[in-house]
């Protein structure tokens, strides 16, 4: 693995009295796509929200480009170039597509808008449409596009394929590869293990708030345990 852009060590996160992450270690190399797989309730979204500063880390370190960002405020984390397309998309449903993108853009807006629309030509015709009226796939594109507006150095994707038709899932994963080609490192949490392992360089499997297995995505894709649990028994 190349020098990590994001490295997490000993991360513990509590929700109320219950600990969700019990000392989690994970690293993502510069320019890589790392996939985190795992069943519902394994703590994947908790991990993603903690990285972005939405949840508080109880203990451990989250280093982004060498700097500890654990418990930094979410808007400061965004400013450092660590963006997330969160679970459930969290777009601004009663604002227009353009307004959603501009909000993502901060000071950059105009310059970035064209670059983002090049990746998502579907959104170009819908700029003045209310975001809540987009289809699920378009909303996911808007969500990723909104994050790209800030020129991220790293992008976190939480369940980008959730609830989308297989054709759209394929489209989204193609985009993920294209975004990486632009030099953005990507950490992706996915239930669709097959699609995620296909695009990822490295992968890790989360079980009960820790990383169970990890390794090269191609190796994990043929690991019998992964095959049985996440790929439906036939690799």
């Amino acid at each position, binding site marked *: 693995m190349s020098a990590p852009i994001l490295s997490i060590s000993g991360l513990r996160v509590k929700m109320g009295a219950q600990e969700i992450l019990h000392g989690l270690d994970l690293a993502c190399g510069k320019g890589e796509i790392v996939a985190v797989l795992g069943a519902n309730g394994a703590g994947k979204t908790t991990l993603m929200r903690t990285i*972005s*500063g*939405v*949840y508080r880390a109880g203990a451990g370190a989250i280093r982004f480009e060498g700097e500890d960002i654990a418990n930094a*405020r*979410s*808007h400061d984390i*965004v*400013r450092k170039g660590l*963006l*997330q*397309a*969160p679970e459930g998309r*969290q*777009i*601004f*449903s*009663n*604002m227009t597509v353009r*307004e959603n993108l*501009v*909000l*993502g853009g*901060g000071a950059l807006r105009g310059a970035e808008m064209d670059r983002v629309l090049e990746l998502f030509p579907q959104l170009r015709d819908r700029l003045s449409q209310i975001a809540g009226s987009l289809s699920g796939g378009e909303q996911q594109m808007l969500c990723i596009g*909104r*994050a790209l507006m*800030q020129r991220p150095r790293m992008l976190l994707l939480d369940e980008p394929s959730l609830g989308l038709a297989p054709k759209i899932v394929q489209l989204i994963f193609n985009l993920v590869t294209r975004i990486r080609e632009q030099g953005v490192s990507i950490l992706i949490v996915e239930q669709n293990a097959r699609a995620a392992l296909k695009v990822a360089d490295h992968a890790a499997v989360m079980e009960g708030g820790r990383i169970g297995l990890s390794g090269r995505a191609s190796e994990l894709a043929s690991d019998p345990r992964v095959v049985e649990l996440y790929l439906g028994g036939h690799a």
Partner: protein
Amino acid sequence: MDFYLQQLAIGLSVGMTYALIAIGFTLIFGVLNVVNFAHGEVYTIGAFAGLLVVTTFAPPLLAVLLAVLAVGAFVGVGLERLAFRPFRRFSDEASLKSRAMRESTLMSSLALSIIAREALEIAFGSRFQSVPVAAMINQPIALGPVTITNGDLIILGVAALMLIGLQYVLRHTQVGLSIRAVSNNPLGAKYVGVDVDRTIVWTFAVGSMLGAVAGVLVGFYYGAIFANMGFTPGVKAFVAMVMGGLSSIPGAVVCALLLGVCESLSTAFVSSVWSDMVAYGFLIVTLIFFPRGIFGGARERV
């Protein structure tokens, strides 16, 4: 007929002041899901600030309005700091808009409003403070058969300008877009890097600027300024907000105008003392027949 036209004109200008106040309620409700019970006092403080400026410097009205805008922003920021921020220990959406937050800030803003009112009474006494005649905006203007005052026109004009300005801010500035974003989806706002705490402060500043200007306009229109003056218009604006669907600005403005006009026209049929009942009647009808507000069906916010 002339009487009705005249009352219509007066009702529109009164309704505009309700609208300015109601927008403050609406903006804050949109962002935090709370009712700011100290909003009526922001209106009162705006009026007193205008009075102080006029009696000390006697500047033109425009300068008074600018000074009051600044005071309003300052009061809004202070209000947020004293009555709202201390209760906001977590800023995820669940706690930001939780019931506990709503109830505790309801009490704290109510407490602050009582403190502000009493402080004004101690400082200025409980009697009406009269506005210098030169500063009042009640010169009669005859428009055909109707006689209105320049105050009616000034209130209409200033309020309309501020509404247009607000729409511009909400649609084309980073602050305004952030306010709408937090109102629409506070969690999403965090992911795009909106500073939610700062946006909440801005919301209070903007809402209080509108409320304070309404206070000084009405104070100079009637020529009387007193510590309790914010209560009645505060209640009416609150009614307009509820009628408009709690978090819809256009809804609140339309309902505020409707309320002002109906009140004003009602004096044709009942003594003006009873015209206050119009607002309460509207509130009851709204709550029974349109529990989500007349314009609240779509649940659009800000």
